[in-house]
């Protein structure tokens, strides 16, 4: 009796926590977005959100950022992971250096890249030193949305590639060495080994990494605020504005549901796109 109930007893705190602080709040946020103060169903908050002039811009910017950042990150992390795997000495040190950004918050990453891109920053100093420019350029001014976007993309790639790298290195460690030895015997080139063994065997890890990264990409917030202020509206920034500055948690909740819907849609899409057939798992 004691032993049979023990696992449930051990799971109780975590389960309670997940119910109260994960499942219940997501029900609550839907309630906030769809139910008016008088307790009736309403689409008024969604209308208010969708007709606001910033909504389309924020939605487009968020999508564009994700599109510019995530594929590049996956490719870069794949490359870094193969480099790490081909290493005989110093593997641990290099891996530590490359995973440093894992401990750096998005806000700190934004501030770090601000040091480079701001008007009196290091990029301007370097360009002037090289004689390319005479006066410092305002890379992050309200008129230069292009360079703001680029700075955010760089900061995001800098900060969040590490998480993909860790997942992929762990995944590569699971691939049996015999497969490569066999490929070697049959004279397969490095590239062929990569496309025919590594990539297919890495599917589950790629799936995990992509889901995580895509979700985080749609959550992008502090990097954008640090580098662009309000010049480049994004979804999380709008949520923060509606919730904190405009004190309208219903419209904020409507925005939240949009982010939620996008996240779930992409998770399902990635799960389907990178599914591993049963029996093909290691």
């Amino acid at each position, binding site marked *: 009796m004691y032993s*049979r109930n*023990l*696992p*449930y007893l*051990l799971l109780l*705190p*975590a*389960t309670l*926590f997940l119910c109260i602080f*994960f499942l219940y*709040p997501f029900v*609550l*946020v839907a309630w*906030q977005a769809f139910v008016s103060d008088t307790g009736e169903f309403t689409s008024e908050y969604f209308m208010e959100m969708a007709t606001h002039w910033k909504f389309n811009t924020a939605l487009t910017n968020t999508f564009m950022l994700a599109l510019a950042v995530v594929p590049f990150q996956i490719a870069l992390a794949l490359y870094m992971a193969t*480099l790490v795997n081909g*290493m005989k000495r110093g593997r*641990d040190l290099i891996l*530590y*250096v490359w*995973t*440093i950004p894992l*401990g*750096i*918050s998005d*806000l*700190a990453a934004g*501030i*770090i890249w601000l*040091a480079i891109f*701001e008007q*009196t920053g*290091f990029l*301007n*100093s370097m360009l002037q*030193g090289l004689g390319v420019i005479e006066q410092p350029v305002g890379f992050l001014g309200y008129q230069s949305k292009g360079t703001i976007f680029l700075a955010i993309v760089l900061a995001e790639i*800098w900060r969040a590639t590490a998480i993909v790298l*860790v*997942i992929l290195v*762990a*995944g590569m460690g699971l691939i049996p060495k015999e497969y490569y030895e066999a490929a070697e015997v049959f004279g397969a080139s490095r590239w062929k080994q990569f496309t025919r063994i590594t990539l297919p065997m890495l599917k*589950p890890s790629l799936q*995990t990494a992509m889901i*995580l990264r895509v*979700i985080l990409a*749609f*959550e992008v*917030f*502090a990097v954008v*605020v*640090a580098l662009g202020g309000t010049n480049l509206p994004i979804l*999380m920034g709008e949520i*923060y504005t509606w*919730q904190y500055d405009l004190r309208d*948690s219903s419209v*904020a*909740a409507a925005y939240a549901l949009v*982010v*939620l819907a996008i*996240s779930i849609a992409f*998770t399902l899409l990635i799960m389907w796109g990178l599914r591993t057939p049963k029996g093909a798992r290691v």
Partner: protein
Amino acid sequence: MSTAAKMATGNVTGKSAWHKYVFTGAVILLCLWVLVPIYLLLVNTFSSPEDVSGFPKSFIPNIDTGSVEFFLNYAGVGQALWSSIKVATVTMILSIMAGAPAGYALSRFEFRGKETFRVLVLMTRAFPLPLLALPLAVMYLRIGLDDTVLGLALVHTMLALPFAVLITFSLFSGIPVELEEAAWTLGCNRFQAFVKVILPLVLPGITASAIFAFVISWNEVFAAAVLTIENRTLPAFLLQGLGNAPLHLKFAGGAVLVLPALLFIFLVRKYLFSMWGIANR
């Protein structure tokens, strides 16, 4: 060895030497890509306030603690630092207390509902968790948890809990159940066996997972900014100051945010992989 064979090997070593240069070059370049931006932040941090907003900028700091002193004496910074530490510590304790038992149960028992729980934990990854702050802000107002350390720590625990469960699960799975069984046959009950045999073995890993929870909370911005007003944590405080604070305040603040995180990641580097490796299956 014939000349042809010699030429062939020569060719091969020539090609692999070329490979080696590209390889080493790429590794060094990628290390610089990670390290140089952090170095530049530190240059700004250890320059005088005048140098930080001066132009052109020197790439070598003149080691001046003016910016750091200004930051530390700035109104609200001490309070924000203290709030950050309090929230992160509570997060650390809560996530281990709830996560470790769950990790142990998953690694040692077969029971109905195990798969459901695992799916629930993994599902948290497909959800943008900072959004939880919105409904919770309303809920907290009702139950009096608004703008409190505990209220924010509970949200951060939600962020850290899935990691705590997965790390402890992989830690406990790595310890043979036979060790526990041996302790039982020698007269220990389940609890004694756990405390005397298992706990010493997993303690370093548990510590690492606690540190990781601390870092998650220390770095979190969105929920902290939404849920606190008086008790702002350091990231929330800095976020609010982004618009109008002087440059040297931002950079010194950024450095204070980064440095402990660097140290923590160094301490837990051995365990980074057990967080993700196991979750792939």
